[in-house]
């Protein structure tokens, strides 16, 4: 039943005392990658770029 499946806890990764859900880890990694790319990628210049 879909309503019940929404309550699943997901997959957890554990290293000693530290544990994190895979979904949360993916979101954090995506944020870090986007942050780094935003610092290094050139911004496209539009028609009105100065």
């Amino acid at each position: 039943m879909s309503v019940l499946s929404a309550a699943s806890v997901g997959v957890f990764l554990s290293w000693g005392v530290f544990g994190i859900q895979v979904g949360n880890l993916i979101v954090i990694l995506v944020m870090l990658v986007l942050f780094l790319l935003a610092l290094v990628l050139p911004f496209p210049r539009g028609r009105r770029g100065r």
Partner: protein
Amino acid sequence: MTTADTPVQPDLGGEPAPIPTVQVEDVLEHDRSWTGRARRLLLERLPADKLLPNEQPSYVASWIYVFGMGAIASLVFVIASGLVLALNGPAWYHLSALGHFINSTHLWSVELFFLFMVIHLWGKFWMAAWRGNRVLTWISGVVSFAVSIVAAFTGYLVQTNFDGQWIAFEAKDALNATGIGAWFNVADFGQMFMWHITLLPIAVGAIVALHVVLVRMHGVVPPLESAETDAQLLPELLVEATTNGDSR
């Protein structure tokens, strides 16, 4: 005064009495009412070219400056999908395919909202975005982050499924330990639902609007290495730079 500007008087047989002419600007300039004072203050602090600028300084052409607007775009999706959920109710969004999809877009847009907001926060933290009288802009951003967390939390509480129930009963002990549980009762679905669909959206919307207005008033913060070019945004620095013959 030209002839065309002279008020026309009916011919009553005598010398026409002059009608005093009053300039609208004079009235507004000396209007002591609260609306007059508020108008002058707003026009002084937030003139139209600052409120709706058609250009930004060159340093804004960087990807790190787009995440604030990304968060706002996500917030628009959060509110729009939430309105659709409110119109149709839990039976629709739990049991129909379209309802499931809209329910999911509500969650996905919240995740994007936080994702963009956190990257925006990192970018602004590492460029010390509170520089140049922008402390209130920084603080309003922090407050909007905090209030958004409460809004998201109440959203998880009102999923109307076992997940929401489990989260409420896990959270109640922590909140009771702080003492706030006596008033902010996470096990009270009605209270959490009202907070989620009325109070918190209004609070987040108002704080984000204030944050954007403050950004408009003080301008987008320049990168650390080009702090001296903040003259583009701060009039007193511009005057100083012009006086010193600095054309940067």
